[in-house]
C-alpha cells in the first residue's frame, strides 16, 4: 500500500524498513517503512495511539524494534549504543516537553551543543583558549537561536518556570543546537497558538532550506499539509497511506480513520 520512495534516491537520509514493535498484547507498529529526505519536511500523522511516537522512539534509537532496520545516511544503527543516533546527527524532541528544570533556558539550549565541544576535561581544568572560544561561540549560537524562536528575554529564567508553550519552543531550540542532519519533532505545535504555529512553520521551512531533514508528527492538519512534502499516515500501527499532502487528505481511508468525514475539519473554523 505504502509507496515508499526508492532507496536509491540519493537525497534520502533517514530510512526505516519493516519496523515492528509490540508491547505485551499491543502491536504498536507492524512492518512500517518510512523515509525522509534532506531538505524536506516529511509528515507523519495518524490517530491517537497509532504508533507515531513509538516509531520516532525507534528511529531515535531509544526503543529497540522487534524487527526492521533503521538506516541513517546508509548506516544501520539499530542495536547500537544508546545515544549513538545523536552522535550520527539525528536528534528528536519529546511529546512531553522535557526541559532540564534546574537549568536556565540558556543553559538548556547550550546543552544541545554539548557534543560539539567533546569531553576534554583536561582542557577545562587548564582553561585553554580553544575551549573558551568554543564555549563563547556556543553561547552566541544559543542566543541567536533563542532570538529566532522569540524566546529572547527568558534566557536566565529557570526552565522549570516556563509556561507550556515556551517549553516546546525551548525544546526545539535545544535540538537545533546540536546541528542535526535529521530532526524528529513530536507534536511541536501542540500548545502553541496560531501565531506561534505559523511562525514556527516559517522557521522550520527555513531550516530545511539549509539541507536539514525534518520528520514531523503533529495533529494540526493545516500546519502539516502546508509544510510537508510527503505525508505518511499510520493507523493501528500500520501504514495506511503515504504521498503528497493533497492526495493523502483526499484518501478515504485517512478521512475515515483520522480526519473525519466532513469537508471542513473545522480546526480553525469559526462557528458563528
Amino acid at each position, binding site marked *: 500500500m505504502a509507496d515508499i520512495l526508492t532507496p536509491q534516491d540519493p537525497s534520502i537520509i533517514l530510512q526505516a524498513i519493516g519496523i515492528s514493535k509490540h508491547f505485551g498484547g499491543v502491536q504498536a507498529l507492524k512492518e512500517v517503512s518510512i523515509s525522509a529526505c534532506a531538505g524536506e519536511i516529511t509528515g507523519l500523522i495518524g490517530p491517537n495511539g497509532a504508533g507515531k511516537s513509538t516509531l520516532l522512539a525507534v528511529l531515535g534509537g531509544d526503543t529497540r524494534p522487534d524487527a526492521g532496520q533503521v538506516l541513517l545516511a546508509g548506516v544501520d544503527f539499530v542495536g547500537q549504543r544508546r545515544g549513538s543516533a545523536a552522535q550520527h546527527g539525528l536528534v528528536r524532541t519529546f511529546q*512531553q516537553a522535557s526541559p532540564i528544570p534546574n537549568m536556565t533556558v540558556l543553559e538548556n539550549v547550550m546543552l544541545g551543543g554539548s557534543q560539539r565541544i567533546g569531553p576534554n576535561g583536561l582542557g577545562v581544568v587548564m582553561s585553554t583558549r580553544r575551549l573558551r572560544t568554543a564555549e563563547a561561540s556556543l553561547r552566541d549560537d544559543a542566543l541567536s537561536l533563542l532570538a529566532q524562536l522569540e524566546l529572547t528575554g527568558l534566557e536566565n529564567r529557570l526552565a522549570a518556570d516556563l509556561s507550556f508553550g515556551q517549553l516546546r*519552543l525551548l525544546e526545539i531550540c535545544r535540538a537545533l543546537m546540536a546541528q542535526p542532519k535529521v530532526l524528529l519533532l513530536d507534536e511541536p505545535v501542540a500548545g*502553541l497558538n496560531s501565531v506561534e504555529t505559523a511562525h514556527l512553520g516559517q522557521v522550520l521551512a527555513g531550516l530545511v532550506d539549509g539541507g536539514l531533514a525534518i520528520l514531523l508528527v503533529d495533529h494540526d492538519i493545516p500546519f502539516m499539509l502546508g509544510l510537508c512534502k510527503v505525508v505518511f499516515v499510520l493507523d493501528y500501527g500500520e501504514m495506511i497511506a503515504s504521498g503528497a499532502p493533497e492526495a493523502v487528505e483526499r484518501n478515504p481511508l485517512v478521512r475515515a480513520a483520522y480526519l*473525519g468525514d466532513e469537508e471542513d475539519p473545522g480546526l*480553525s473554523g469559526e462557528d458563528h
Partner: protein
Amino acid sequence: MMKADNVGVHYGAIQAVHGVSLEIKAGGFVLILGPNGAGKTSFISALAGIVPCSAGKIVLDGADVTHVSATRRVRLGVSLVPEGRGVLKGLSVKENLLLGWHASAKERRGSFSTGLGEVTEIFPRLSERLEQDCSTLSGGEMQMLAVARAMLARPKVILLDEPSLGLAPLAVKAVYAALRRLSELGMTLVVVEQKNVPITSVPDRTLVMREGEVLLDMADGRPSEAELAELYLGGRR
C-alpha cells in the same frame, strides 16, 4: 455559582495572574483563550485550588473557598483536567477511572459501572486499554483518560486545561461532543484553549488573556480567528 474576584497568582517574584475576575453561571460555558504564558493555567489552577491565590478571592455557591484545599474543592464539585494530563504512573486505566468516580460526593455518583459505560462510549479507545498502565498510553490516549476521569467525578464545574492538546482531529471532535453533552446535562464548563476549537455551542463568556491580564471579556460569543491573531500579536514584545 462560581466566582473569581480579582484573583492574583504569584510564583516567588513572578506574577503570573494580575487580578482576574470571572463569574461563572450554573450550567454556563466559559472559554478562556490566550497565548503562551498568558497565565491561563495559573488562573484555572487557582480556581481548582492547586495554586494559592496571592490576592482576591474565590467563591463557590456563595461560600468563600479561597483557602479551601484542592482536595476539599473536588468534594464540593470542582474538577480540573490538568495541563499535562496528570498521569498516575503505576496505575491502570481502570484504577484511574475508579479514583475519578470515587472522588465525587456520594449522593452525586451512580454506580461505577454505569459511569464507566458512559465514558468508554465517548472514548472507545479507553475500553481497549483498561488494564494498561496509564503511563504507557499514547499522548492522545492520556488526554482522553484525563477527561474521562474528571467526568466520572460528576462535578458541578469541570475545568479543562487545553483538552484538545495532542488530540487527533477526530478525537478533538469526540471530546467536544462529549463536553457539549455534559453542558446540555447542566454541567458548568470552563475551558482553556490557545486555538479556536470546533465548538458547536456558543460560549456564554469568552476571556482572552495575555501576560496575566484580561484583554477581552466577551459575552455570548468568541472572537474570530483573525481577531484572536490580532490580540495575540499585539501582545508580543
